């Protein structure tokens, strides 16, 4: 029996510590991980918890991230609660197995600390890895601060393991800006947190030898489409379960999360869409802009996948111009947030002037002043009633102004 960890009602935790405590409280059966900056402390803390008797489980040391996720797939199909953590290059190496995990419908939870992808090599935060895993069939939840990193990780288990979902989930926090920034976190005590998540119910576990099952079957043209379609439906429908879990979490903690988060959007004429730690920076910028008389609001999909199309469109019903801020270089296209939001609006017959901004690559600082500049540019579009700024701009980039039309 695992020893209880004494927690104060308020702890000073960074995002990594918060995530590792959530993993501990979930009493994960198997963690197979290959530590990588900036998510190393999650794995390191978890290993210490295990060594000190705070967890009953197995920590599997592996030789690469590909093996880490493979071991997770093995343990999850055997019938255990499984979690891991990674970032950037490790995430990239895992990608092949990410598709296996979601295709086999294994509810693995991965606490991702977002970091830029090489080359050039960079250890700091951007959403390159999140966007890489976008179509892998995982649920992606966003956390903007250590408290949310803790809360989202607890919720992730409950969402993943729901009988109608049974899909793997990542919780995402920005490298260093969240993962290494200590803030006040209000944790649940061990019993309450575990009770919230509940006992793990295995489905078709391979260790049940009286009911042998085949995992990872081959399906050619007469079956593959049906399996993928049913997996896609589960992912789309998981939005409802995410909302239910968020509601239950609110009852327990008083902290309310939504599929689409927004800030001062009720009377807004223009809006910014942004995910991650920059959302909180943007809140400061919105307050400043409102002092100057610009009616601006913020919107953020809490779940990047499933993408809440209709919810985001209805939130943006009354805005005239929207700037989508993507923290990943889309390389030859517009950013993902720009694409998804544009699609969501046109599907609902709405027309706002859309622009795209790329910011914060490789951990580049993005301040409230920078975002205020974006708000002012977007306001120009709203005032003119047509797009007068460039389609895609770059925030806080050195050199002559770079933009695309």
């Amino acid at each position, binding site marked *: 029996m695992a020893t209880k960890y004494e927690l104060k009602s308020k702890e000073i935790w960074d995002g990594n510590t918060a995530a590792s405590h959530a993993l501990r409280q979930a009493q994960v059966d198997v963690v197979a991980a290959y530590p990588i900056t900036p998510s190393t402390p999650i794995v390191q803390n978890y290993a210490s918890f295990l060594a000190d008797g705070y967890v009953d489980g197995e920590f599997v040391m592996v030789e690469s991230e590909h093996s880490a996720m493979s071991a997770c797939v093995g343990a999850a199909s055997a019938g255990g609660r499984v979690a891991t953590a990674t970032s950037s290059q490790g995430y990239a190496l895992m990608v092949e197995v990410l598709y296996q995990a979601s295709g*086999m419908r294994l509810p693995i939870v991965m606490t991702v600390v977002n970091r830029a992808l090489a080359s050039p090599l960079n250890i700091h935060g951007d959403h390159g890895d999140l966007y890489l895993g976008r179509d892998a069939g995982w649920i992606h939840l966003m956390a903007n601060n250590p408290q949310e990193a803790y809360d989202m990780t607890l919720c992730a288990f409950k969402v993943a393991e729901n009988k109608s979902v049974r899909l793997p989930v990542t919780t995402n926090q920005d490298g260093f800006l969240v993962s290494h920034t200590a803030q006040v976190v209000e944790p649940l005590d061990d019993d309450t947190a575990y009770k919230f998540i509940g006992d793990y119910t295995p489905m078709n576990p391979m260790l049940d030898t*009286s009911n042998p099952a085949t*995992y990872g079957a081959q399906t050619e043209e007469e079956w593959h489409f*049906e399996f993928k*379609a*049913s997996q896609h439906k589960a992912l789309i429908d998981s939005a409802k379960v995410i909302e239910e879990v968020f509601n239950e979490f609110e009852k327990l903690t008083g902290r309310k999360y939504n599929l689409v988060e927004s800030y001062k959007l009720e009377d807004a004429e223009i809006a910014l869409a942004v995910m991650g730690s920059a959302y909180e920076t943007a809140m400061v910028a919105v307050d400043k802009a409102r002092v100057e008389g610009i009616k601006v609001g913020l919107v953020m999909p809490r779940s990047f996948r499933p993408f809440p199309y209709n919810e985001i469109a209805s939130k943006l019903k009354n805005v005239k111009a929207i700037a989508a801020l993507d923290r990943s270089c889309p390389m030859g296209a517009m950013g993902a947030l720009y694409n998804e939001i544009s699609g969501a609006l046109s599907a609902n017959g709405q027309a706002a002037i859309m622009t795209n901004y790329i910011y914060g690559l490789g951990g580049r600082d993005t301040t409230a002043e920078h975002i205020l500049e974006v708000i002012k540019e977007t306001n120009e579009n709203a005032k003119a009633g047509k797009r007068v700024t460039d389609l895609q701009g770059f925030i806080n980039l050195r050199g002559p102004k770079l933009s695309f039309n």
Partner: protein
Amino acid sequence: MATPKEMMTTWDKIQFGAVLPSFEDPANKVRSKFNSYNYKVADWRVEKPVFNRNLCIDCDFCWVFCPDSCFEVEEVVNKRGKKQAKIVGINYDLCKGCGVCVEVCPTPIKSLLMFSEFVENDEALKQWPKKEDKKD
């Protein structure tokens, strides 16, 4: 390998995650219709294993190693009064000709050998290598 029409189901009825159970009714060991026993892979073969009962020592290595459970066994009682699995033949519908059984067969002259698909089994047994006479 075409799926028989009556086995085709729609996206809303398939087993999620392509996790296929062996038995529809585990208590009575009723095989699921998706069990690989219902599929014939004979046409994958180029060569087939032929089994020579006269040389077999019933070590059951072939039965253990066969990836498709092709080996047919009979339960017998051996000289010491213990139950034993006696290998009696090969199910050629399930055998895809991988040759693992021949590889693991431990008898001095193999009791399993690969032969071309068009050689009849009786003919194959006649061609079986003979024990070389010891030279003085």
